[in-house]
C-alpha cells in the first residue's frame, strides 16, 4: 500500500509538483499543457475516476484563479487534487470534457461562476445561471458582494428544445411540476408514439445560494448546520463530509466514539433513504402496496433517528471535532431490538415483492447503463455499483468508523433498473448489519475533540458515501474562523447526466422509473446556486409567465 502510494507520487511527478495535503490526499500542481495528460492518466490510465471540479477566485491570495479537478483512486485509497493556476489576464483552461464526458457540467459550472473559459469544451453553454442573467457578472468571484442585487430583464427568447427532435416528435414534458418528480426539474422527452427517441435536461431551478452565504457570512462551526440543509433526505452525510474536510485540514483527532456515532447515524440515514426510494420506485411501477409497505417500515427507522438525535430528519448532530449527543446503553438496546424486527419484516416483504412478475418485467433490461458509459460519466454509488463498478467510499477511502466493521458491497453487472433496486435492497440489509456491529463495539471515549485549531488557506477534502454515492466536500480555509471556499458536490450531480443515456430508446412508460432509478436528489444537485439575492426579480418573471400560460 505504502509502496504503491510512493510509486504513484513518482508517476505523478512527471506532470507537476506533488504534495501530500493529508494522509490520503495528494495535490498536483500542473501546467495547463499537462492537464489533459494527467486527467487521462488518472481517469483512464490507472483506474481512478473523475470526481469533481472546483473553481476558486484566489486573487486576494496569489493574484490568480485556480481550477481544481479531484480524482479518486479507489484501489490506493487516495484522492488526487489536480491544481491549475489561471492568471486573471488569460482566463482559459483546456477542457477535459473531451476525455472525460462526465466533467461537462463541472466545467460549465466553473464557467458560469468564475468566467473561466474551457477550451475545446463540446457544449460551452450556460448550465446554472439562467439564460437572461447579465453577461460578465460572475457571482462566486470574491469581488462580488453576497448581498448585491442583479436586475434581470424579462425573457426575450429562450434557447429551448433540441433542434434534432423538436417539431418532428412529440414533446412530453416531465417537470418541473409533474407527479413523477417530487422536485422541480425538467426533462423534455422526445417521443415517437411510446418510444423515447431523445431527451433534454434542464435543472438548477432551486436557488439557495449556499456557497456564497457560507463563504461570506458564516463561521466554520455554523456551516455544518447549513450543509445539513443541502438535502432533505441525506443531509447528515453532507454534514459529516464537511466536518471531515475541516478536520482533515486541521488534523483534529476526532474521538472514536464520535466516529462510531457518526457512522451509526449515517447508516440509519442510508436505510431510511433507500426505503423511501424503494417506495417511490414501487409507486412509479404502479405497485402502491409496495410503496405502503416500505414507507411503513421506514417509519420505524425515522423513529429511531428521532430517539437518537431528537429529530426525525436534519439531526444537527455534528460539530467540527465530534458530535453533540451520545448514545447511551438503553437507547442502543432499543435500536438493536427495532433493527432486528425491521430486518425480519423487511426481508420477508422484499422477498415477496421481488417475486412479483410485473416488478421484474418492468425493471429488467430497462434503462441500461453499461460499464463503459458508467465510467465515461463517472457515475457514483448504487448507480455505479449496478453497472459493475466496484466503488464505495466506505470501503476504499474508509472514514469515520467504517474501518472497524465488516460489510460487503453489492455489485451487479447488468446496469438496469432491476440491478439498482437489488443493490439498494442489499445495502439496506448491510446497513442494518453495520449498525449492529457498531453498537456492539461502541468504544468508551469522549464524543468531542478538545483542541481545535484550523490553519489558514489550506485545502481540505472530506468524503462520505451518501445513499446516492460519493459525497465530496472541498474546503479552503480562511482566517477569522471562516471558510474561503466551500464546494459540496452531491452524487446526483454526476449521476444525472447519465440519465440521458439511460432514457434513449426506452418506453415512455419507463421514463419515471428510469429517472427515479438513480435516486436523483435534485435539491442536492442544485443547492450550489447563488441566486437567492435576486429571487424577487426572478419570481416576478416566473409569475408573469405562469399566469400568461394560465397556470397561475
Amino acid at each position: 500500500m505504502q509502496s504503491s502510494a510512493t510509486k504513484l507520487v513518482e508517476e505523478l511527478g512527471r506532470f507537476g509538483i506533488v504534495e501530500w495535503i493529508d494522509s490520503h490526499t495528494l495535490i498536483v500542481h500542473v501546467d495547463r499543457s499537462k492537464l489533459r495528460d494527467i486527467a487521462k492518466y488518472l481517469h483512464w490510465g490507472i483506474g481512478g475516476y473523475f470526481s469533481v471540479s472546483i473553481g476558486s477566485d484566489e486573487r486576494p491570495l496569489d493574484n490568480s484563479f485556480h481550477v481544481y479537478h479531484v480524482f479518486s483512486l479507489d484501489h490506493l485509497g487516495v484522492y488526487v487534487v489536480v491544481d491549475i493556476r489561471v492568471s486573471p489576464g488569460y482566463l482559459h483552461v483546456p477542457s477535459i470534457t473531451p476525455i472525460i464526458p462526465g466533467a461537462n457540467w463541472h466545467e460549465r459550472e466553473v464557467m458560469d461562476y468564475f468566467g473561466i473559459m474551457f477550451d475545446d469544451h463540446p457544449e460551452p453553454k450556460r448550465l446554472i445561471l439562467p439564460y437572461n442573467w447579465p453577461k460578465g457578472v460572475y457571482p462566486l468571484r470574491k469581488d462580488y458582494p453576497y448581498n448585491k442585487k442583479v436586475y434581470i430583464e424579462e425573457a426575450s427568447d429562450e434557447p429551448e428544445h433540441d433542434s434534432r427532435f423538436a417539431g418532428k416528435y412529440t414533446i412530453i414534458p416531465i417537470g418541473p411540476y409533474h407527479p413523477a418528480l417530487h422536485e422541480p426539474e425538467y426533462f423534455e422527452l422526445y417521443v415517437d408514439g411510446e418510444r423515447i427517441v431523445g431527451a433534454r435536461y434542464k435543472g438548477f431551478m432551486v436557488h439557495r445560494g449556499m456557497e456564497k452565504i457560507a463563504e461570506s457570512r458564516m463561521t466554520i462551526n455554523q456551516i455544518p448546520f447549513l450543509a445539513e440543509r443541502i438535502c432533505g433526505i441525506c443531509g447528515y452525510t453532507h454534514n459529516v463530509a464537511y466536518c471531515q474536510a475541516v478536520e482533515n485540514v486541521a488534523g483534529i483527532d476526532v474521538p472514536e466514539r464520535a466516529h462510531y456515532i457518526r457512522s451509526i447515524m449515517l447508516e440509519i440515514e442510508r436505510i431510511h433513504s433507500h426505503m423511501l426510494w424503494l417506495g417511490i420506485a414501487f409507486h412509479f411501477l404502479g405497485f402502491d402496496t409496495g410503496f405502503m409497505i416500505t414507507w411503513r417500515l421506514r417509519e420505524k427507522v425515522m423513529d429511531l433517528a428521532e430517539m437518537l438525535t431528537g429529530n426525525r430528519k436534519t439531526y444537527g448532530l455534528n460539530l467540527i471535532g465530534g458530535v453533540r449527543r451520545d448514545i447511551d446503553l438503553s437507547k442502543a438496546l432499543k435500536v438493536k431490538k427495532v433493527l432486528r424486527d425491521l430486518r425480519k419484516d423487511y426481508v420477508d416483504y422484499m422477498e415477496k415483492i421481488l417475486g412479483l412478475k410485473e416488478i421484474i418485467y418492468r425493471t429488467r433490461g430497462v434503462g441500461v447503463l453499461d460499464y463503459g458509459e458508467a465510467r465515461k460519466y463517472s457515475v457514483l454509488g448504487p448507480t455505479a455499483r449496478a453497472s459493475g463498478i466496484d466503488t464505495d467510499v466506505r470501503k476504499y477511502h474508509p472514514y469515520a468508523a467504517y474501518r472497524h466493521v465488516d460489510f460487503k458491497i453489492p455489485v451487479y453487472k447488468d446496469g438496469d433498473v432491476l440491478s439498482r433496486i437489488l443493490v439498494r435492497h442489499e445495502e439496506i440489509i448491510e446497513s442494518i448489519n453495520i449498525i449492529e456491529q457498531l453498537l456492539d463495539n461502541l468504544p468508551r471515549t469522549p464524543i468531542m475533540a478538545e483542541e481545535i485549531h484550523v490553519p489558514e488557506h489550506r485545502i481540505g477534502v472530506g468524503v462520505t458515501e451518501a445513499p446516492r454515492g460519493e459525497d465530496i466536500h472541498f474546503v479552503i480555509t480562511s482566517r477569522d474562523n471562516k471558510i474561503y471556499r466551500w464546494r459540496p458536490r452531491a452524487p446526483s450531480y454526476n449521476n444525472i447526466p447519465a440519465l440521458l443515456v439511460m432514457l434513449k430508446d426506452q418506453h415512455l412508460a419507463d421514463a419515471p422509473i428510469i429517472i427515479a432509478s438513480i435516486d436523483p436528489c435534485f435539491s442536492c444537485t442544485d443547492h450550489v446556486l447563488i441566486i437567492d439575492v435576486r429571487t424577487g426579480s426572478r419570481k416576478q418573471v416566473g409569475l408573469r409567465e405562469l399566469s400568461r400560460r394560465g397556470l397561475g
Partner: protein
Amino acid sequence: MDLNTIFYLLIPSSLIFLPIIALFRGKTSNYIVHGVSITVSIIIIILSLYVLASGSTLDFTYKICLDYSYPILSFKVIHFRLDSLSAFFTLVLGIVSLASSIYGIGYIGRFYGREHIGWYGVNYLLFIISMYGVLTTYNLFIFIIFWELMTLSSQFLVSYEKNKKQALWAGYKYFCVSKLGAEMIIIAGLVLMIIYSGYNVDYEVVASRFRELFLRTPVIANAVLMLLFMGLGIKAALVPFHNWLPDAHPEAPSNVSALLSGVMIKMPIYMMYRLFYQFSQPTIYWGVIISSFGVVTLFTGTLYALVQIDSKRLLAYHSIGQIGYVVLGLGASGTLYAMGNYPLAFIALLGSMYHLINHALFKSLLFLTAGSVVYRTGLRDLNKLSGLAKYMPLTALTALIASLSIAGIPPFNGFVSKWIIYISTFCAGGYLAFYGLFALFISSVTAASFVKYFTTIFTRSPFEPGSYKKLEEVPFPMSLAQVMLAALCILFGIVVVIPLKLITSAISLLGLNIIQYQYISFGIGFIEVNNIGVNSPLFIGFILAIILPILYILIARPRYTSYGIWSCGTLVKEGLLHYPGRSYFRGFKEVFSEAYTVGKAVHEVLGVTSINYSLKFFKKLQRIIEDPVAMIVLTLVVVLLIIWAVGW
C-alpha cells in the same frame, strides 16, 4: 315528356355536351361541365326514385338489326332498362355525383392555369354517363362497352395532374391492373356467357339460359362464375387483388376520388348481385367463398388503414375494408338463401345494400372533406396537419359526422347497416357467426382509425400557427356538397324507413320479398312489421344519449373556467406540443405486427406479382402492337373470328 323519354334521351343528349366541354378551357368549361353533370345527376335521382317508389321499370329497346339469321348481329339490339335494382344503384350514383359535381365547381378552381379543365370535364362527364350506362343497360354487350368507357375515363381522371409523377404512376398501375387484369377476365367470362346463352345478350335471356346451364353442366357454369367473380373482385379491390386501389383513388381530384370510392367500386358489386341472384342461384359454396373474401377484405383493408399517414390513402384503404362488409353481407345472404333460410338471407342482403349506400354517402363525404383540406392547405400528410377545426368549422363538423358514421357510432347511418349485417350473421350461427364477430372486432379498429383521421386533421392547435393565418372555410359550393351528404348520413341513420323501403324494393327484384317474411323480422328492432324503426325504444335511447349532452351544453351553457394546456409548468411552444399521425397506436401496431406481416406477404406475393405480371404482359402487348407483322397476323385472326362468328 314522360319519364321514359327522359330515360331514353339522357345518355345521347349528355354525350352531345362532350365536344362542347372540350372546346373550352378554364372557368367556362368548369361551369359547363358541372352544370351539365348536376342536371344529369338530378335527372338520375328523379328517375331512380320514381322507379323505386312506384315499383315500375323504365325500359326501351332500340333495334337496328334487320337480319336475325346471323346470331352475332343480335348484339345490335340496344336494350336499356331501369329496374329497381339498377335504380337503387343509380340513386347512389345520382346522389354522389350530384354532391361531387356541386363540390367540383369550387374544387376544380385549384387547377385553373395548371391543367386543362376541358380534358377533366370530358372525362368527368363521360365517367358519370358510363357508370349510368353500366347500371341501366340490359344487355351484356353494351355493358362491356360502358364498362370499358368507365375504366378509361376514370383512368384519365386518376392521372389528371400530369406533372405529378405519382399520379401518372398510379394511373398507369390502375390501367394495367384493371384493363389487363380485371377487364380481360370479365370480358372473357361475359363472352363465355354470351356463347353459352346462344349469342343472345339480353339479361333475361342470358339469365334463363345460364340457369339451365347450371343445371346441365355445373362445372362450366361455375368456371364462368369463377372467372367473372375474379374479374369483378379485382375491380372491387377485394383482398388480395386490392393493391391498385390505395394508389389510384387518392391521386384523382378529390371529387373524383369521392366518385371512385363512393360509386365506381360498387359497379362490380352491382354485377355480383345480378350474377348470383339473377343469372344464377346462390349456392352454399359460393356463399362461403364470397363471405370469406369479404372477411379477409375487411380485415386487411381496415388494419392497413390504421397505419396510414396520408389522409386520402387512409380513406382509400377504408374503402377496401368497407367493401368487405358489403361483400360479407352478400356472401352471407347467398349461404342463407341456399340453406333455405330466406328471411335471414333477405336481412343479410338488406344489410349489404344498406351498407353499400351508406358507404357511398360517408366515404364520398370523407373524400370531399379531405379534398377541402387539400384545397386550403395543399396537405395530405397526417403528420403535418392539425388544428383546422378553428378555421374550417363546417368541414370539421361534416368530417366528424362522416367519421362517426363510418365508425358505426349510433345514431349515424353506418351503425344501422353494420347492425343489420351482424344480426344476420349472428342469427345464422355457424361459420357466419364467427365472421360476424370478426367484423365486430374490425369495426372497433375502424373507429380507432377515424379517431386518428379526425383528431389529427381538425382538432388541437395548428402545427405552425403562422402558416394558417389566411385559412378560411371552403367556398360555398364545396360546403354545400358536404352539408348535403352529412345531412343524408344523419337522415339514413335516424329515419331508417326511407332507405329500407328503397332497398326492399330493389331486393324484391332478386326474388326475395319481405312481404312473405314479416313474422321473422318482428323482433329485429328496425325492421318491424310496419317498418317503424324510428319508434323503437332503443332508438329513442340512442338519440337521447347523443342529444341530451349536446342540449345540455348548448342550452344550459354550464360555467367553465379557462386554463392553458397543462404541460408541467414549462413553456413549450404551442406548435411543438404536436402529436404526429404516425405516432398513433404505435403499440398496437408493434404488438399485432403478425397481422401486418401476413398482410404484407399477401400484398407482396399476390398483389405485387400480379401487377408485375400485368406490366410484363402490357409491355409484350406493346411490342406486338409495334411489330407490323404481328399486328397483321392479329388483325387477320380477329377478322377470321368475326367471319366465323357471322357465318355461324
